[in-house]
């Protein structure tokens, strides 16, 4: 292994260094093709990469990072590019390290109930592999057919069933990561009294290094599952029903609400689920456990829905019917493409008790900016996804979308909530961090990041505000500063 010497940024020499060990078919430099990597699930922003590398192993990732560091070139890991906060958008003409070819489930240990995987494994493929052993990978983002577990780790992703089972971070046993200086290390459970390095890494959005292998926890598949669907005459009634369910002490596996516009879009799509078109909102509840527990919970949920004058109530026990009810929820974002070509999915969190009131304020924001706003949310966690439909080609519309987004985030924070439930900060909410962290806290975060990534090359311009990173295409940002004094990574993590 060549020792790393840090130099001024030089993309051409980087290319030459890469060509020594990577076949040309796995280095993308064609400008048109590169530009396809200029955005992710958040199409509000675009920035083309300097190049794209299709990597196939942990060793290759390590070598690629070392090459980038020694030529002063910033880099961004990428899974499936479904992130909704612009995390995989390569600011500063960073090079994209695409990990989607690293898609093997290496081992499933049914006794330990763990799976060892490569980071490019698609979430649903992992769950299917686990299912073959009677197990399950619990975090189930609605993008689970497409998104990678590496991306889930980076964003600490959630999903409908995380209400009961916890977000991604609860399911990570250990990680092998390539740190931003090109060294490789294993992050595992800490010895007593020490900080948990896994907790630091999960949710770090590619800024603290690249996960090249993970051991994740699996859980038993539940004895029985029941999905319930209730429809309501108003969105507020659906929200109140959720509060009643929780107040009654029930702990369903999932509690999801979709509003009328979303219902309409979904029902017009291949994901149609049979949601009633006359409802203002539908509530999806999933109960899991023993048959007895399920009966008890159904009674609680049904009573709560009746108390809120639900229009209809439906239950499904067999997998096919349950899958149908979930289809609509999982296809909801995509189906909004029927309304407009771009969608901005927000991700605020508010205290559950204030759901109805916050939704009402958010609806007004949409109206005031003359935007089509729809709502899908993880009601159990108070995690809102107000969706703004727009056309990114129209700068005036984009400005209105950004202004509305800003107001919505402020409303969530004011209501005692926070910026992100599961999509991460990325580029989208970077400049809102000061709403929830004071200057001192932000400085600490920045110090930590500088300690792990002294050259500032790992996913630059994301998460922490500070003016680094340029979104405009064609504009070169400042080169990654190599001058920051580094504290040893081990000191920070150990």
């Amino acid at each position: 292994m060549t020792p790393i010497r840090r130099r001024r940024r030089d993309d051409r020499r980087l290319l030459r260094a890469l060509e020594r060990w990577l076949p040309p078919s796995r280095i993308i430099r064609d400008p048109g093709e590169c530009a396809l990597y200029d955005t992710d699930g958040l199409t509000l922003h675009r920035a083309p990469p300097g190049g794209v590398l299709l990597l196939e192993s942990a060793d290759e990732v390590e070598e690629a990072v070392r090459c980038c560091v020694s030529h002063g070139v910033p880099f961004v890991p990428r899974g499936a590019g479904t992130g909704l906060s612009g995390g995989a958008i390569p600011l500063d003409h960073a090079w994209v390290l695409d990990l989607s070819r690293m898609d093997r489930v290496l081992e499933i240990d049914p006794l330990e109930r763990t799976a060892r995987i490569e980071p490019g494994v698609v979430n649903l493929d992992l769950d299917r592999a686990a299912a073959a052993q009677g197990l399950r990978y619990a975090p189930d983002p609605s993008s689970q057919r497409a998104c990678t577990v590496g991306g889930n780790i980076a964003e600490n992703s959630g999903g409908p069933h995380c209400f009961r089972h916890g977000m991604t971070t609860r399911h990570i046993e250990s990680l092998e990561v390539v740190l931003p200086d090109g060294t490789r290390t294993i992050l595992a459970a800490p010895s007593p009294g020490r900080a948990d390095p896994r907790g630091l890494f999960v949710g770090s959005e590619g800024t603290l290094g690249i996960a090249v292998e993970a051991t994740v926890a699996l859980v038993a598949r539940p004895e029985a599952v029941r999905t319930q669907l209730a429809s309501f005459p108003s969105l507020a009634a659906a929200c109140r029903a959720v509060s009643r369910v929780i107040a009654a002490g029930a702990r369903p596996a999932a509690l999801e609400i979709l509003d009328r516009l979303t219902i309409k879009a979904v029902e017009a799509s291949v994901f149609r689920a049979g949601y009633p078109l006359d409802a203002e909102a539908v509530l999806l509840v999933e109960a899991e456990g023993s048959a007895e527990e399920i009966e008890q919970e159904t009674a609680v949920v049904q009573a709560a829905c009746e108390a809120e004058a639900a229009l209809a109530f439906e239950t499904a026990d067999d997998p096919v019917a349950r899958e149908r009810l979930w289809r609509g929820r999982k296809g909801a974002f995509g189906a909004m493409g029927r309304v407009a070509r771009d969608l901005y999915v927000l991700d605020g969190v508010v205290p559950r008790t204030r759901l109805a009131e916050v939704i009402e304020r958010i609806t007004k924001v949409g109206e005031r900016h003359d935007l089509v706003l729809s709502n899908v949310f993880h009601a159990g966690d108070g995690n809102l996804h107000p969706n703004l439909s727009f056309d990114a080609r129209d700068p005036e519309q984009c400005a209105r979308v950004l202004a509305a987004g800003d107001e919505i985030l402020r409303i969530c924070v004011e209501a005692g909530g926070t910026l992100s439930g599961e999509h991460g900060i990325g580029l989208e909410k970077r400049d809102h961090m000061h709403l929830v962290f004071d200057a001192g806290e932000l400085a600490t975060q920045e110090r930590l990041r500088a300690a792990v990534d002294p050259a500032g090359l790992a996913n630059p311009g994301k998460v922490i505000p500070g003016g680094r990173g340029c979104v405009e295409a064609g504009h070169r940002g400042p080169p990654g500063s190599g001058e920051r004094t580094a504290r040893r990574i081990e000191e920070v993590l150990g």
Partner: protein
Amino acid sequence: MSALPGLDDCVHCGLCLPVCPTYAIDRRESQNPRGRIAALRAIEEGRSAPTPGLLRGLDDCLVCRACESACPSGISMEGLMMEHRSRTSDARSDGRTVAERWFLRAVVSSPGVLDRFLGVARLGRSLLPAALLPDTPGPSRLRPARAASPPAATSRLSTETKGRAVLLRGCIADRVQDRETRLAARLLSHFGFEVSISAPGCCGALQRHSGLVDLARELSLERARDLLSGEPDAIVVDSAGCGSALHEPLSDAPELHAVAERGTDTPSLLATIGLPPPPHPIPGPVVFAPPCHQSHGTRSTEATRSLLEHITEGEVVLLPGEEQCCGAAGTYFLRRPAKSRQLGERAKERWERGGRVKTLATGNPGCLLRWESLLRREPGVEVAHPVTLAARAYGLESEER
């Protein structure tokens, strides 16, 4: 130039990624549906030049349409590719594109020329070893056209007619599965339909996918007029590619819409009457490999699957990963031989993973040829059109050579 129709339907959600066969191989953005649409948009909006990388990604699309079934936003990749290829077709002059266009314009579109072409191909195929021509069909599949004999009505089960049905012969389909067409005629006739068989001729499906849209429209209209001439109640198309094309009219011509409305396939038509138990059930298991254009175009796989279940003793299983194209994809195997072969190998792996079931059913000429070639070295394996198996189960196969 006006915007490509349907280009605005994509929200970049990525839910189509896992079903795209070319992405499964390459894992590059230019090789998946989201990237293809982004490429078309970038070119149209002037954000990108049509660089070789982008064009290759667009050319490599199989138009298998798996992404259409996966997309919550309702994109039409077929529509986009047809339009894109039509707009760029004249500017393309690479050998393979030119050869493909010649084949589609001059050979396929005219039954007489196709016959002569196949005659030469058949000769070549018998002289040259299979190893040199791995993707080409065996000589038995390149028979010259036979007179279409309307089936004898003697074996009819009932005297009451179930309606008039006309069968499409097609062009390539007519050579590859002419026997199947005659078997379908026997089956339908046996169960009380008044059956006629159309004159041979191309429906324009292949031309449509290669962007020869005007020619495709013209041919489909010609076919429609011919098919409608006997005022049939049902138009039966047992080649999924043709069925899918006739299902989606290329213009407002009333004939095209009449065909789309009455279009069906033998299993779907049989499903409307309810079949008695077959006297000679097919010993199972049978693996069903639904053609892409049946899964995502006509969306009529359920009827075929039910028919197979009805006539099979034992299990009917779906090919694992059935939404992934086998790589034949119309003329794709000529235009992109390497990629096509790679997809074929993957399809074969899925067949192996699915338990190496000895009877494989698939209802499209391209898929039949592809699977025959993929499984030709596997002892005791039969690749058959569902119609053939059904005819066998009802004792009607031996009457047909």
